[in-house]
């Protein structure tokens, strides 16, 4: 793309975003989402630098005690001074994206051409239900980051898909006695890392912006993830878990997740489930951690694990292959560091998840070549925000693993190895609004940094990882 053309289009998108900013800046300063209305806090109280989703100590406490703090509504007609608050929030994301390779509906799968577009709309509700029970409910209409298992063939239309998103009900209590400070509870939710409060797990890392990531979505298998951070992290399971946070230092959690197709709990996977979707048997999720705060600093060191089985490729229903099962053991370490003292807000996160997977006979030769595979997935990020207004972020995400010429047929010799770097800068002129630019650079895909030899999907043979890079100018409004 010529640079002048790029700048012209960028200016158009920017002006459109600014129009939205001016419109929304005139709204009531306290008119912010459900939890803020309930607690009376500004965003910056619970989110690092005011920027979701990263949580401060106060935000972690709010979640661990079941979203219950703040003003309750009651049926007795008393204490109703704040009942005029809306129990809903709306979140709109819009962006202009530019792809390094712009073949429409080809290499980029169902990616759009580089049009300016609204792409994700979410509706939230939840908060305090009783003194011990609270909820976080989100559902989302998405265009380019489909949560549903829709067809992604070259001619597939770009349909909006509506489905449940991160949703959780928590029952929690907080006791302080001579033996210490005990926060404990149970949750029911639809995503395996939904319960995370340290923002190291897939669900709550900061690359929350919904966009068509061609590395993930364009050609299947070029950016594989572990089952813990990928497969079961897609709102297609229902989990029941329990946790304990002792003396605000030691954290332990145990949960069981599985696919639920029928019955009342299937409402948690509404819009996500499909005949060709992966299915999961009982999967055990566990987490342990150590949390320490001193002055404006905080560190967390954690262990995470997932032990389970299922049909991660969705082949049972698709090909009537009974017993096409894989089992996996995912284990990892993660860490967080935070520095929070206005006007400076800094956070860094790291995780490394090692996966061993064993494939049963019907899968081998069908969708995988090897009886057993390993995958090591990493994530690291750094965020700095000044005055809760100006921010910069840098993410690193990738994996190394066993070559599998069937599962990773697009990779060189079946390599799953990939690396990506995502720098971004943003401006929050108002606490409800964020405007930013984010780059997604793929430095390695299919095990190579240069010529990506492709022998599947009828792709041209001269692609490099850079062909999957994306530039995005985005705006986000939450109200």
């Amino acid at each position, binding site marked *: 793309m010529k640079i002048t053309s790029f700048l012209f289009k960028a200016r158009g998108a920017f002006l459109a975003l600014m129009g939205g900013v001016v419109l929304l800046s005139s709204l009531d300063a306290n008119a912010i989402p459900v939890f803020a209305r309930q*607690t*009376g*806090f*500004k965003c*910056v*109280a619970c989110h690092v630098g005011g920027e979701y989703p990263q949580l401060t*100590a*106060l935000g972690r*406490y709010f979640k661990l*005690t079941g979203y*219950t*703090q*703040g*003003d*309750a*509504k*009651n*049926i*007795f007609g*008393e*204490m109703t*001074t*704040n009942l005029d608050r809306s*129990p*809903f929030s709306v979140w709109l994301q819009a962006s202009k994206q530019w792809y390094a390779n712009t073949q429409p509906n080809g290499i980029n799968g169902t990616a759009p051409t580089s049009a300016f577009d609204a792409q994700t709309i979410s*509706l939230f*509700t*939840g*908060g*305090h*239900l*009783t*003194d*011990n029970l609270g*909820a976080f*409910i989100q*559902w989302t209409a998405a265009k380019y980051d489909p949560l549903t298992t829709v067809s992604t063939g070259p001619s597939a239309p770009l*349909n*909006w*898909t*509506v*489905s*449940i998103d991160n949703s959780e009900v928590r029952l929690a*209590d*907080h*006791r*302080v006695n001579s033996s210490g*400070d005990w926060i404990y509870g149970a949750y029911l939710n639809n995503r395996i890392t939904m319960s995370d409060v340290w923002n190291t797990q897939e669900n709550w890392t900061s690359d929350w912006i919904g966009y068509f990531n061609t590395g993930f979505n364009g050609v299947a298998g070029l950016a594989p993830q572990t089952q813990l951070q990928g497969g079961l992290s897609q709102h297609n399971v229902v989990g029941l878990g329990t946790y304990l946070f002792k003396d605000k230092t030691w954290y332990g959690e145990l949960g069981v997740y599985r696919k639920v197709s029928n019955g009342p709990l299937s*409402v948690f996977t*509404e*819009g996500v489930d499909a005949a060709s979707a992966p299915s999961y048997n009982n999967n055990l999720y566990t987490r342990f951690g150590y949390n320490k*705060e*001193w*002055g*404006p600093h905080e560190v967390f060191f954690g262990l995470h694990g997932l032990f389970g089985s299922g049909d991660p490729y969705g082949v049972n229903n698709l090909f009537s292959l009974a017993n096409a099962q894989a089992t996996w053991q995912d284990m990892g370490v993660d860490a967080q560091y935070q520095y*929070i*003292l*206005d006007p400076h807000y800094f956070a860094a996160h790291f995780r490394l998840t090692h996966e061993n997977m064993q494939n049963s006979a019907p899968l081998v030769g069908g969708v995988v070549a090897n009886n057993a595979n390993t995958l090591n997935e990493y994530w690291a990020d750094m965020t700095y925000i000044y005055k809760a207004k100006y921010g910069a972020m840098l993410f690193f995400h990738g994996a190394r693993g066993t070559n599998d010429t069937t599962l990773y047929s697009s990779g060189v010799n079946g390599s799953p190895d990939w690396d990506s770097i995502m720098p971004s800068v943003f401006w929050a002129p108002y606490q409800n609004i964020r405007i930013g630019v984010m780059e997604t650079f793929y430095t390695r895909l299919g095990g190579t940094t240069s010529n990506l030899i492709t022998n599947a999907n009828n792709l041209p043979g001269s692609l490099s990882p850079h062909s999957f890079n994306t530039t995005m100018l985005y705006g986000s409004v939450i109200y």
Partner: protein
Amino acid sequence: MKTITKIISLSAMTLALASCADLGSNPTHSSERSRNLNNPNVTGSTYAQQVCSTCHGLNGQSINPTFPNLAHQTKEYIAVELHELKDETRLDPAAQQFMWGVARNLTDKQIDQLAEYFSKQPAPVNTAYADPKLVVEGKKIWQEGNLSGGVPPCSGCHGENAEGNANIPRLAGQHSDYIYKQLTVFNDDYELVNDHKDIQSNLEDPGVTENGEPWRAGNNGAVMELMSHGLSKEQRMAVANYLQTLR
């Protein structure tokens, strides 16, 4: 069609949950460990444990200096501030970000209980690093004032050991970062007010600009605006470092 069905079913579920949110809890029950900030039956000590302790510490000694120590603070001062936060007459940014929401529905009785609870906690011993050079300079300002800036000795009002007196806050052992931030707030208010004196004199409410933006830290901040303006940045930092070392 399928999409419409999904929208309808998800809307129904969301509305059902939203209406559940209206049920709430019986205020006469389970208030012992409640975090419901709109229940007059919850005691101040329950709030101290369930709500305030997250930032200010169970014993009134906070970890992050964003939040002030409340331990051993004078009861009168805590009550005055909670009333100002409830009435939204204390206008500094942190008050708006955190405390307006917490205090907005507290009853007079709960405010009294909270003030009682924190004033009875043992005095904080702040072991955070304080710059020895600044401590010496701060001590001098505390005891002798800064006459060239028109600042009388701080100890005259706050006490020789910053122990406070009724409505005048105790500052001994307070986080230096917090003291410095608040002195900056006072100074910023002073400059705003004095830069706009001509406009201010025509305003109905001198605490608020004509655009409704807050000008002052709070009703009780007027004296401190003058004091803070009489100190340089380094002098404010010095006083803050000195106060942190006091027991």
